[in-house]
């Protein structure tokens, strides 16, 4: 660092002279060629200006010399140059001559219309300056409340707000067209009057002069229909700065929709992504400070472009050397390292590799046996073999599906009644089959149908509403955080509100109705500022009747989509290397530069070429020397955190750690044991079913007799809805159909669009169930209740709405909250209907009969029949249709406790339920929460917090999970002799053999302990608390 500092200082002092000296020394041997960003200039207005950028090619390498070269005007009355910023001075023709290192370049200039007025344009200049001077940022006047009573739209997203604010509000004192210099909007930022925001304007500089002239000209606030179409930043897309050429002048041209072009270099806003490495001044001049890469982002109105600047400095004694490259990943990573003068680390040993790879591909640590086998294997390509082996396995599919399920918010609270499990299983299957990512995206984003039958349709159930879907889709497949653009244009990116709402339009007609994803015939999104109805994204003009999602997905998945493949491979890279090439992985924007552009591009190309298959990319990366690099650093790479010169230790994720503790303690069986267990249980289940089968007919008779003898029973719950209305009151009043007449569960409503669905899962009277009930809509629930005699029953009911029994209101006033109510039953089958309305998007529901008890006092004698079976059997056996009989036959084995147990075990095994890294939905426990398991509430991977916290330390040292695992695990190890115990423990927990020091420390501890069990437990506890165990390395 230091030499560069000194050099910068010298540059500061001697400025051009020293650079000139430094360069002229090379003059004798160097080939120099001059080039400018323009060959001629035609100014057609008195205010026309251009930023000239002069590049000197020294031995073919481009260097910016705009501020070093001599730039002379042949006629200062026609044209002037101030360090290359060229302005008109009067009508006529002239030439600019550029001189550097004896080379000369000439640019002819003509100026016309100098006498014509060219007023400042509010929309294109005043607005740009308000952004440039930071007036409209979120912490100043752009905050929703404004500041000190003066409010602007954030980053100028809405000029209509700003012109009102400037010219109408604040008693019109902000602008004084009679005495322009007295305007508050000038005096405050000049600090002539108190201004909390500090000095923002200086007399004589372009922003001040422009604002002053705008006011003096009458503060015109016209908003013409013309827009800025795009900007072009020169040079682009990247430049390298190397001493002595450490600056780069930028020029910015704005192209408008009326065909005009203006130089906006002095009114554009410039930002650097890392001010420690390179800075940029208000006029677009970049200065490199330290070795590294930055993005200089250039904003003009809602347009944003970035230029990537790499600053290079020589590291003393640096000599390139690298382990053998395995594939193009190494070639490209090394090229970047070499350019910035870092050395790649060596290759990690087998023990480190086997643990690293298992954790990355399966989420689990290898068993002791797997580690030993790998370490002892002699085959030279054993690492490749292991990669292939793990990619083919079940654990890989489950673990990588978990990462996706995190993003797609698969949780039991959002996806009920088996949906979470089914959606997860679909994600697992996609991973197992290595479904092409294009197909995956298409299936997911165009899913339709019943979420209970089409697992991937749950994507739309988990993520409700066009806005959330917009944000999710953008984050998932475009790698972009579009949510900023919901309320204002994105501060650092070209994402605008227009983009947000056109992506919203794609999903505006995708509705979920009674758990069924379908297309509505209407539904639009409206831009909240312009009030325009948005066309679906991608310029697709989907006619009515066409699923708008289809053309969007086609745009998304075409091979030249700039995001899709890059975002996908970057996610894979980040999972494997601990940091994305673009990082965070969902923050792709031109102002957040990739650490290695060629690498990202090459991986994306490979992904497309290979048919968008993830496993191929994973295989490629895992086989690279880059992936297999060691943690060990040297002076030549220890400061590198971005370029993948060495491995970085990562705290295990919540799921990885929980499973690792279980596997190391021996309380969790290796996942490889599952297939065999599953087969065994499946066979057992079939066997049990077969055993039960002969008794079916007899059981039916018994059950029918049982039901017939009951004095009281309740049938299964049915539900229909939601029925929408204008407001809650209307919804409460209106009868949508089910309130009148006799109940018929085959009836349809709302023009055949809604029908009753049975809900056998609402069977337990104790829990409070949540039913989906959107605001301003109603849902009906109904069931049959049989009573032998007319009687009044006492019921605890929770909900919000009305209750009818046999078509008559059962309550005087609507039910709110939970209450005990009385319902009068007639003899025979009664029909109960409940109507729910909700203030939230869901309603709570509970129905417990307190008296009589459901089994009518003779519970012991009754068969435990589920309501749907009771309802069917009540029709009596003789009348049962084949379908009804079939339905009961399906349920029949479930009546058997042994059968249910085997089934639960089997399901758990199939879903890898015991493994936190493999389960279909997260398990909520303090340990997992402390270690940052996501709640699955947002799509952002940043929801996962992986840096160490004190809570984690407490969980490790003293948490219940750890305590119990260690306690149970002791039995597993205690039977071994000390030497074997220590070897086994290290191999299992850390995938390596213990060192001599560890063997002796552990052995001594065990030998000296008065109670061996406690000592074993303490040793286990200690190893599981070493940082080597807690981190992946």
């Amino acid at each position: 660092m230091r030499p560069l500092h000194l050099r910068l200082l010298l540059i500061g002092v001697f400025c051009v002279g020293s650079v000139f000296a430094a360069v002229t020394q090379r003059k004798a041997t160097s080939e120099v060629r001059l080039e400018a960003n323009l060959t001629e200039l035609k100014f057609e207005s008195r205010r026309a200006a251009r930023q000239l950028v002069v590049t000197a090619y020294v031995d073919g390498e481009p260097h910016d010399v705009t501020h070093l070269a001599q730039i002379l005007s042949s006629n200062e009355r026609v044209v002037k140059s101030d360090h290359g910023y060229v302005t008109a001075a009067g009508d006529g023709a002239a030439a600019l001559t550029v001189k550097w290192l004896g080379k000369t370049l000439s640019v002819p200039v003509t100026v016309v219309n100098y006498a014509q007025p060219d007023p400042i344009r509010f929309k294109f200049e005043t607005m740009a300056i308000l952004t440039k001077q930071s007036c409209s940022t979120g912490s100043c006047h752009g905050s929703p409340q404004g500041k000190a009573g003066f409010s602007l739209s954030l980053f100028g997203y809405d000029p209509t707000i700003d012109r009102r604010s400037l010219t109408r509000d604040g008693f019109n004192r902000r602008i004084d067209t009679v005495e322009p210099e007295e305007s508050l909007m000038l005096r405050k930022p000049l600090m002539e009057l108190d201004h909390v925001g500090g000095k923002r304007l200086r007399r004589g500089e372009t922003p001040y002069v422009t604002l002053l002239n705008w006011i003096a000209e009458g503060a015109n606030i016209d908003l013409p229909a013309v827009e800025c179409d795009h900007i072009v930043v020169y040079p682009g897309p990247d430049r390298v700065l190397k001493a002595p050429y450490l600056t780069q002048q930028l020029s910015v041209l704005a192209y408008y929709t009326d065909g005009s072009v203006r130089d906006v270099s002095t009114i554009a806003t410039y930002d650097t992504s890392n001010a420690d490495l390179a800075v940029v001044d208000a006029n677009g001049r970049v200065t490199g400070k330290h070795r590294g890469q930055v993005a200089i982002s250039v904003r003009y109105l809602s347009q944003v472009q970035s230029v990537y600047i790499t600053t290079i400095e020589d590291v003393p004694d640096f000599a390139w050397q690298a382990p053998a490259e395995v594939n193009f990943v190494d070639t490209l990573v090394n090229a970047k390292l070499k350019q910035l003068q870092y050395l790649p680390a060596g290759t990690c040993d087998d023990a480190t590799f086997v643990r690293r790879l298992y954790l990355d591909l399966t989420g689990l640590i290898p068993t002791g046996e797997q580690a030993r086998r790998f370490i002892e294997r002699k085959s030279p390509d054993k690492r490749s073999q292991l990669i292939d082996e793990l990619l083919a396995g079940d654990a890989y599919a489950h673990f990588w599906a978990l990462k996706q399920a995190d993003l797609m918010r698969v949780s039991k609270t959002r996806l009920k009644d088996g949906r979470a499990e089914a959606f997860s299983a679909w994600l697992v299957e996609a991973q197992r089959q290595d479904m092409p990512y294009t197909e995956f995206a298409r299936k997911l984003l165009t899913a339709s149908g019943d979420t209970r039958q089409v697992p991937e349709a749950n994507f739309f159930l988990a993520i409700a509403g066009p806005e959330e879907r917009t944000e999710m889709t953008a984050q998932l497949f475009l790698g972009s955080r579009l949510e900023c653009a919901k309320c204002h244009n994105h501060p650092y990116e070209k994402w605008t509100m227009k983009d947000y709402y056109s992506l919203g339009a794609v999903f505006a007609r995708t509705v979920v109705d009674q758990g069924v994803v379908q297309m509505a015939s209407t539904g639009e999104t409206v831009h909240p500022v312009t009030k325009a109805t948005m066309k679906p994204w991608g310029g697709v003009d989907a006619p009515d009747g066409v699923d708008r999602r289809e053309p969007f997905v086609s745009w998304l998945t075409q091979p030249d989509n700039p995001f899709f493949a890059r975002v996908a491979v970057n996610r894979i890279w980040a999972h494997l290397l601990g940091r994305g090439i673009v990082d965070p992985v969902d923050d792709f924007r031109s102002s957040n530069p990739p650490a290695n552009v060629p690498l990202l591009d090459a991986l994306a190309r490979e992904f497309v070429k290979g048919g968008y298959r993830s496993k191929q990319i994973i295989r490629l990366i895992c086989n690279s020397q880059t992936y297999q690099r060691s943690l060990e650093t040297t002076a030549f790479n220890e400061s590198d955190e971005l370029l993948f010169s060495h491995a970085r230790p990562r705290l295990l994720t919540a799921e990885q750690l929980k499973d690792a503790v279980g596997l190391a303690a021996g309380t969790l069986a290796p996942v490889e044991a599952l297939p065999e267990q599953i087969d065994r249980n499946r066979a057992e289940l079939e066997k049990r079913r077969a055993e039960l089968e002969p008794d079916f007919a007899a059981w039916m008779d018994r059950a029918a007799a049982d039901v017939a003898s009951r004095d009281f029973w309740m049938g299964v719950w049915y539900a229909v809805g939601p029925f929408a209305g204008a407001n809650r009151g209307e919804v409460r009043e209106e009868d949508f159909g089910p309130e009148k007449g006799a109940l018929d569960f085959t009836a349809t409503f709302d023009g055949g669009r809604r029908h009753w669905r049975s809900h056998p899962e609402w069977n337990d009277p104790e829990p409070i169930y949540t039913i989906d009930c959107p605001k301003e809509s109603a849902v009906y629930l109904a069931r049959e209740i049989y009573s032998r005699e007319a009687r009044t029953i006492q019921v605890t009911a929770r909900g919000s709405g009305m209750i009818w029994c046999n078509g008559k209101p059962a309550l005087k006033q609507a039910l709110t909250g939970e209450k005990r109510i009385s319902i009068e039953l007639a003899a025979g089958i009664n029909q109960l209907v409940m109507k729910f309305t909700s203030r939230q998007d869901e309603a709570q529901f509970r129905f417990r009969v307190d008296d009589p008890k459901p089994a009518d006092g003779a519970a012991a004698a009754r068969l435990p029949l589920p309501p749907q079976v009771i309802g069917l059997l009540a029709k009596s056996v003789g009348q049962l249709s084949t379908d009804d009989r079939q339905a009961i036959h399906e349920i029949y084995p479930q009546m058997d406790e042994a059968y249910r147990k085997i089934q639960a075990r089997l399901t758990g095994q199939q879903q890898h339920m015991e493994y936190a890294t493999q389960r279909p939905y997260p398990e909520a426990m303090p340990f997992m929460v402390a270690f940052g398991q996501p709640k699955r509430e947002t799509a952002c991977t940043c929801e996962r917090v992986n840096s160490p916290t004190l809570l984690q330390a407490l969980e490790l040292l003293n948490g219940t999970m750890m305590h119990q695992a260690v306690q149970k695990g002791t039995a597993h190890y205690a039977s071994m002799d000390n030497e074997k115990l220590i070897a086994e423990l290290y191999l299992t927990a850390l995938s390596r053999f213990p060192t001599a020091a560890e063997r002796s420390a552990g052995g001594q501890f065990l030998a000296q302990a008065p109670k061996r069990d406690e000592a074993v437990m303490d040793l286990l506890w200690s190893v599981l608390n070493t940082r080597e165990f807690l981190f992946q390395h």
Partner: protein
Amino acid sequence: MHSHSHVPLLRRRSFIGLGLGGLAHLAGFGSLPTALAAAATPSRKGRAKQVLVIFEQGGVSQIDTWDPKPDAPTEHRSPFKPISTVVPGMQFTELLSKTAKVADRLTVVRCMTQPTPGIGDSHPKGSQYIFSGEAPGGAVEMPDISSVVASILGTQAEFLPSNILVPGTSEQAATSHVGFLPPGYAVFKTGGNLADPKWQVPNLGLMADIAPERFKQRRDLLSNLDVGFAHSGNVKDIDAMHALLQQAENMLTNPRTREAFDLAREPESMRTRYGMGHRGQCYLLGRKLIESGVRFVTVDVREPRQSWVDGKDTSYDGGTNMNWDHHDAIYSTSHTNIPNGGPGAGRWGIGTWPMMGSTDQAFSALIEDMDQRGLLDETLVCFVTEFGRTPKVNDRQGRDHWTHSFSFAFAGAGVPRGQLVGSTDRDGGYITSSMAYTIEDYAATIYEKLGIDRTKPLHTAANRPIMLASKGRPIPELFV
């Protein structure tokens, strides 16, 4: 001690890019060393170093407590008579007869209001509003004020969490948030019924079957085994974890941790002074934790149905949720469950012991005790509720939610003693004073008292700047 070992880390160049999140994870909860905390020394204006918030949840009736309305129409008037306090001209109702004697240490603000009707007019939203100081439902879920304070100011007592809720129930899971801050700043809940003689704080002591001596042996073994690996390569997170494990060990083994929570160490007379029920002991623990140096303590208590009063099992029949949500039978002398009643069931009348009786006793004891111990010098005490109750009694003899006007009380940290701020109309329904203050103003007051610079934004993971209590302004009368 141990904590200093990670101070040099902060100077590492590699650390600079981490910004707030980076600092924060090291800080963990309660872990920020004093060296850093000193960087945020309160400004001249701020006099508080600690904050104790008494959050009485459910919507305490202002008319029956801080803001008596003897001239309201008879049918809507509170049966509880106005009484004089030790401050001339300041009256409370007789439900605050003990607090009336310490009124000379309080500023009572009768002009609190929720500016946007409908935002905080439910208990979950209203509670979240109180916890975070921001109207819920904005673009970004805001962290609690207490989490923000912990993240900025760190702790004064390393052996304790810096942000504690006494006792905390499952209800706050939905209303208390750490938002975009690292999870380590989430509030630590003591849980339990503090009147239960067997109550102990969970998770801050060693497991029952791991004796301190054995724990020490384990740690010795661990430090023998945990070598070598730590020194290879780039070790920022690894070093951080090491420091945190040492701090956690301190928390688990330092006797002062247990002592801070050990109510039995208080003399019997002190415990009785606060009231030997759940509420009194919660308030007492609040004082103890402030005394131990905890940065931010929130007391949110409801008397459990099965409780202990004076060490005896006590059952409040019908009381299933003993907060202040008196929609029904507010003046009942026992429970509020009435035939065909509404959502006000499950409580006890406002004048009963488990409600205002215990509150008056505990709050007056707290103020007096803290004053005597000098704790009011640098602790801001706030008595808050999410909204008030309707000036009219409804047809179920209850009072419903009322966001237009309600009362807060403040003490300590330079809050003027014996001051009354704001006034309401004859019925207590609308503010008549020229000033009216919001929950955002309350939040701004806390930040200002602590010397936290509200012009400096916090940043979310997506780097969105978040201003603290951006819509609020500190309540000027609390800074005289």
